[in-house]
């Protein structure tokens, strides 16, 4: 590192860049993340955008840190505000030690918006960009120079990152951006933020290289590594990156990733492909998931292996397409008419997304049923560092398939044979002698339509037996904290990192807690119910209005007296500090003997 002076070592810093949609906040944050990752730090980023292409408030946040963190923290150290609204919307996240870099092209910042003591660097980025380069487009690159210097990044490293990022968009665009960066560095000099004199000193701590990846990309990659070779999708926020990643990578491996005319085609084309034996996935978000209900139930009934990714966003209906929520749990577990078997997995970090996507792909093939991966907007789209995936540890097991020789050895081949574990062998079309009928009508062992009551019971029981069997190997929850702590947490998806960090803060305040992060929520595994039994009280943290996870636990027999629902449904992601406050409030109520009011209703 160039600088060897007395600045503190960077251990945990959060930067938010905010302005109007199209201002390039996300670009700044992504490049910062890349730079810090390259410096051996871990990062976690978040986007906060509207469902429109340009205009409207848009922000992106980056947190860089040493050690393990899996969320944006409770405080922002640096705000890069490309307009006044950016300050207004984000000031609540600042504290007196925060630094604000403000584009004052539209006038100076009115007083009173910032806490006293906040350090303000103001310059007219927009005007400079317009004046010097004729396009305001480059203001974010100017701002980059300043925030980069402040954070202690090397000028040369910044230039390298710019080159890497903009090269593929042509030399002209690259040159302009580099020019803007130089303007920014120059401005920084003028403001007294010299090279090597940032507020932090960056120390290479972790020698291991890290991937910078979002959950949707991890899901796509996990599927691919698990032998997935057929994917269908229809663009919808926040799932589109799964489609786009697979459109790029699957064909190279001989696979097909097809954008269909709608989600009905998506699910049914996936089913058609899966029937040929290829491992198949589709991904969508709430509205598309609702449309797929008939197809999903059909896969359950006809025993078609299928992975379905639901990248949840704020509902109901079109809702708030760019905002995180976990409010499709009900429809994942209970959607589709009639009774059929299904599995719902819930990863908590881009890292986990990879491994659970592998599991989902294996499980679908093995148990011939729909397997859901429950994502949420934050988990889907927030980019974070993860350790390189251990490809060598991935095992890929094909399901019970019969080839020509195996069929020839049989007396009779029955597609839906009654078996002890409920799983019947299948032949793929093209296999001589192994013809079968696949149908969503109730059917006999051969797949012939049947309404015989005795057959019906056996066939239903067979299908559900698969789930009993699967329970033995479904991904168990991960436990954190003191197993004897009286206070328990249950939460999934993006709540994983938030709860872990809230537990630290609570511990500092003298609360001893433990956390079970379920990674399968359907079927509900015993470890979750046992965890509840073991605790005095359990805070079930739901990112929805109805307490879907809490009630799902009750549905499965959890003692409702032990469950305290914590709800959030305003479209904002939880922050550790916010959660801590919720818990403290509840605990106070308890102390005041108001236990009843706090219970899940």
């Amino acid at each position, binding site marked *: 590192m160039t600088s060897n002076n007395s600045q503190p070592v960077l251990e945990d810093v959060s930067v938010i860049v905010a302005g109007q949609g199209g201002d390039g906040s996300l670009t700044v944050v992504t490049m910062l993340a890349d730079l810090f990752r390259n410096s051996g730090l871990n990062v976690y980023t978040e986007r906060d955008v509207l469902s429109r292409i340009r205009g409207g408030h848009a922000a992106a946040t980056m947190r860089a840190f040493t050690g393990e963190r899996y969320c944006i923290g409770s405080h922002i150290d640096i705000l890069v505000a490309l307009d006044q609204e950016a300050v207004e919307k984000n000031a609540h996240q600042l504290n007196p030690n925060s630094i604000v870099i403000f584009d004052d092209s539209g006038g100076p910042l009115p007083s009173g918006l910032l806490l006293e003591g906040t350090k303000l660097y103001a310059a007219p980025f927009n005007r400079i960009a317009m004046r010097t380069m004729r396009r305001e487009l480059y203001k974010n690159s100017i701002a980059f120079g300043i925030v980069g210097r402040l954070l202690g990044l090397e000028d040369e490293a910044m230039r390298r990152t710019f080159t890497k990022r903009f090269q593929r968009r042509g030399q002209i665009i690259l040159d302009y951006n580099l020019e803007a960066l130089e303007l920014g560095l120059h401005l920084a000099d003028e403001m007294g933020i010299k090279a090597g004199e940032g507020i932090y000193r960056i120390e290479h701590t972790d020698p291991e290289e890290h991937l910078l990846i979002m959950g949707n990309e991890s899901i796509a990659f996990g599927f*691919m590594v*698990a032998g997935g070779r057929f994917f269908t999708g229809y663009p919808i926020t926040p799932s589109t990156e799964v489609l786009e990643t697979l459109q790029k990578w699957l064909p*190279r491996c*001989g696979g097909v990733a097809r954008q269909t005319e709608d989600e*009905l*085609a998506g699910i049914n084309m996936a089913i*058609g492909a899966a029937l040929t034996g290829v491992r198949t996935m589709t991904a969508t978000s709430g509205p598309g998931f609702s449309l797929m209900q008939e197809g999903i139930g059909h896969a359950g009934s006809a025993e078609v292996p299928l992975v379905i990714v639901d990248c949840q966003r704020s509902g109901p209906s079109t809702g708030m397409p760019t905002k995180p929520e976990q409010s499709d749990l009900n429809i994942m577990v209970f959607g589709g008419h009639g009774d059929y078997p299904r599995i719902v997995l819930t990863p908590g970090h881009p890292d986990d997304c990879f491994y659970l996507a592998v599991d989902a792909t294996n499980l679908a093939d093995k148990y011939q049923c729909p397997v859901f991966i429950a994502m949420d907007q934050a988990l889907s789209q927030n980019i974070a560092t993860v350790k390189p995936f251990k490809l060598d540890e991935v095992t890929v097991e094909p399901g019970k398939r019969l080839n020509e020789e195996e069929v020839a050895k049989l007396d*009779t081949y029955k597609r839906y044979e009654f078996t002890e574990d409920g799983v019947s062998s299948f032949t793929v079309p093209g296999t001589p*002698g192994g013809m079968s009928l696949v149908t969503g009508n109730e059917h006999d062992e051969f797949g012939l339509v049947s309404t015989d009551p005795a057959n019906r019971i056996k066939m239903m029981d067979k299908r559900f037996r698969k789930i009993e069997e699967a329970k033995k190997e479904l991904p168990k929850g991960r436990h954190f904290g003191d197993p004897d702590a009286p206070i328990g947490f249950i939460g999934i998806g993006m709540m994983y990192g938030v709860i872990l960090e809230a537990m630290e803060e609570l511990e500092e305040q003298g609360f001893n807690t433990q956390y079970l992060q379920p990674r399968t929520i359907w079927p509900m595994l015993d470890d979750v119910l046992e965890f509840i039994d073991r605790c005095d009280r359990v805070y079930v943290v739901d990112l929805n209005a109805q307490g879907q996870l809490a009630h799902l636990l009750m549905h499965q027999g959890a003692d409702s007296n032990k469950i305290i629902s914590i709800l959030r449904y305003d479209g904002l992601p939880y922050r550790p500090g916010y959660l801590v406050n919720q818990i403290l409030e509840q605990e106070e109520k308890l102390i005041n003997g108001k236990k009843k009011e706090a219970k899940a209703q």
Partner: protein
Amino acid sequence: MTTPPSTKTFTPARPIWCAGCGDFAVQGVLEKSLNKMGIPPHKLMFLAGIGCAGTIQNNLKCYGYHSLHGRVLPAAIGAKLANPDLTVIAAGGDGDGFAIGAGHLVHTFKSNPSFTYIVMNNGNYGLTKGQASPTSPIGYHDNAESGLDSMLLGLSFLSATFLARGFSGNPEQLGRLMEAAIEHTESGKGFAFLEVLSPCVTYYDTHREWRARVYNVDEDESFDPTNRAGAFQKIIELMEQGHIPIGRIFKGEHISLESILLNKEEPAPAQQKIGHNEHRKHYDKFISSHLG
């Protein structure tokens, strides 16, 4: 289709159709064509929608799939793209294909995947007891709309390559059309669309009426099925005269979906061995694309 002795699996069902139903002829002609063309049962993936028509797959020796109502086309596309070596045939009724399935039909014409689709058009919803379908005329039950003509619809897609209409009352011609359709898809030329007028004797017995109204373009020497606009005009004229055109309505050329989408350097998706090391180099590339 004859059943090779090695088969160890289901015995095809007896048709559940009413005596006299046009669908019997469709099945008979289909079996004959498959036989004649030597399509082995294990290479045939036969997908059907829901309805009286959509039970035909149960009666055949094949890999049969009973799709959801209206969803047979996307399922067939999925199967064909995953394993282009299969002979894929989709079938269903006019309600299945033209009502709930209309959007998929449009996109199948548009994308031109190589499989055959047989619509058994009886001008009503047989299995749900005779309600009007998109091909019912105004006045059938309380139908308030004029019927859809699938040949005109098909012609409106520049990517359409095979359009034909047969009649269960003319099995010879139907056989020729069926073979031409399957031949079209076997040689990878794209989507073969074959509508069959197949009367429903129970709810809407059009047998006589249709026999009187059909006009066989195959027998009209002046008709040129390679001329899209000409075919369009001729159909309209015939319909204005009260005729229903049957025969090979259109022959076109357009690249097939699977030939664009599939990576020719690799086995097709369903033919790959499931194992994570086959494409390790791409996985490693993916990883490095996310590294510094």
